[in-house]
């Protein structure tokens, strides 16, 4: 028996396996070295990606803090003159404009977006899928297109630049973002909770209001805060419709032309006066502070959500 085995011709598969094992053993040193270098390069690439972030943050703090003071935050911008080139005033009206425009835009966007999200989460019809596709494509469209839209349908009929036009552009910008986030949050609510509510005899509207919305609230809120953080920093759409890049008047009325922080940053960055160009960093730092408050809030909310899920 054993004699016949020895006499058999060599097994090609076994041979091949030996060959492979030998090659693997021979090359393991080289391969490990290459792997070490490769993975170090990956980590290095990640660190390189963080360099611009560090540079931006450093520039914002170093140059921004230099121009920010209490009067800077609550007075009007001033046109510097040749004899008083450093009298540039403050950014009070831009802060007011940003607050008015963004708060109103969020207030308008939330109900529409949450209802669209609810609709999308409850439907799987062809119409629903089509709307979902539209929502997703809308989230990726360049924001400047909404500026063109608001110009055509708000600025031209009203015959003036206005905060309202900015509100229209930004709320249309935010709706798809919030709708997508809330659809995901609503879909994450366990089906059993929904059924328990219905089994108690509640109408779907009562189940949505009393069960689904409270459970999904952190997810919806994260979406709202992220959308708001994005909208606050948007320059392109409001550049077309809100008002001049540097405006020297107070106005709380959104039906009038307004100022806004991103607009002023853009306006100052190309100014002929060095004092205004430097102050652009102060405006930018104020703007980034708004954005950071919103995005840190959204991280806190989503972290709490994750803890509750556990």
């Amino acid at each position, binding site marked *: 028996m054993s004699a016949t085995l020895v006499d058999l011709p060599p097994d090609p598969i076994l041979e091949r396996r030996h060959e492979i094992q030998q090659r693997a053993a021979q090359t393991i040193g080289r391969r490990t070295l290459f792997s070490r270098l490769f993975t170090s390069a990956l980590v290095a690439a990640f660190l390189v*990606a963080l360099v611009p972030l560090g540079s931006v943050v450093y520039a914002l703090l170093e140059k921004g803090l230099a121009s920010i003071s209490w009067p800077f935050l609550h007075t009007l911008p001033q046109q510097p003159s040749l004899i008083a080139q450093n009298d540039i005033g403050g950014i009070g009206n831009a802060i007011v404009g940003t607050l008015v425009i963004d708060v109103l835009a969020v207030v308008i966007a939330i109900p529409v977006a949450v209802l669209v999200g609810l609709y999308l989460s409850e439907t799987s019809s062809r119409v629903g899928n089509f709307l979902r596709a539209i929502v997703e494509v809308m989230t990726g469209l*360049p924001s*400047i297109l909404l500026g063109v*839209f608001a110009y055509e349908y708000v600025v031209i009929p009203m015959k003036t630049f206005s905060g309202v036009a900015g509100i229209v552009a930004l709320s249309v910008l935010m709706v798809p973002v919030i709708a997508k986030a809330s659809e995901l949050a609503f879909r994450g609510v366990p089906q059993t909770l929904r059924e328990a509510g219905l089994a108690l*005899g509640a109408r779907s509207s009562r189940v949505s209001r009393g069960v689904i919305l409270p459970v999904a609230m952190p997810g919806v809120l994260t979406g709202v805060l992220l959308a708001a953080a994005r909208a606050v*920093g948007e320059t392109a759409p409001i550049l077309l419709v809100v008002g001049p890049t540097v405006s020297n008047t107070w106005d709380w009325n959104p039906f009038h032309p307004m100022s806004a922080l991103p607009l002023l940053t853009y306006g100052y960055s190309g100014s002929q006066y060095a004092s205004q160009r430097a102050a652009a960093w102060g405006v930018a730092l104020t703007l980034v502070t708004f954005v950071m408050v919103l995005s840190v809030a959204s991280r806190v909310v989503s972290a709490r959500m994750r803890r509750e899920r556990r």
Partner: protein
Amino acid sequence: MRVNAEIDQPAPKSDVAERIRRSATSDRPYKFLLRGTALFFGAVVVVFVWSVLHAAWPALHTFGYRLVTGKSWIAGTGPYGALPLIVDTVSTTLIALVIAVPIGLASALALLYLIPRRLRTVASSLVEFLAAVPSVVYGLWGLWFLVPWFSKTLEPFLARLTGGGWPFNGPQVGFGLLLAGFVLAIMILPTIVAISRDVIATVPADLIEGGLSLGATRSQVFTRVILPTARTGILGAIALGAGRALGETIAVAMVIGSNPQIPHSLFSSGATLASTIATEFGNAAGNEGGALAALALMLMIITAGVNAGARKLTRKAQAH
């Protein structure tokens, strides 16, 4: 006796059954509300698309196909030919992708597998922070720091590499396609990292362990198991990044030099579709408003196409 009497009596009309019946019917307002809002939003989108079409119509009517194929764009007087803008838009996006894709994929792999577990949360939030910075701030940073660095250090260095030949020829002023592409790369990096990280995370652990158990090293597992498996989703992530780069406006407008021309080198100044709308819309007179709206229409068609494609790819990746 007493009990029987109760049983014999006709059952009182069930309150519960009544409420169930009523709830089924009176839910209509709710359904109407949801459908109505969805319809309203759909209508807004239609009006939005219509507004751009409507604004572009006069220019489309007057200039026709030359709006797309014309080789020169001169603000204020015309002619209005968008070819240089389209070329500049595509080339800045390609430059951005060439820089951001390798770094983005490397970062995604590093975030998932290489960075110590304790640091991972911090590292991901740093990348998200990169996404939160408004584009006008990137533009400002580009103006102050990158323009001098490009014109004094990077561009002379690159020009020496090719001996002043293509693609690094021309005046070294900082403003231009290369700088715009560089700034775009930074801005789309978080998108590419976040999406490709999510896709790569769905690669089954069995496959990775299978590779490792066969004696493959980490780098072999990365390049021969993980990346090929996640290929579709990574393409989707890249397409999403490209979509963002194509439509990015303010940061590009601040650093590209606003000079619509067909580029002759990477140092050429230029102007993209979006940046031209931003810089010229305020002073547009006569035909130019319509021509700018036509640019918006082209931008809408291009980015909607790219985004729809990206969506299909990421969807397909999730289905696996």
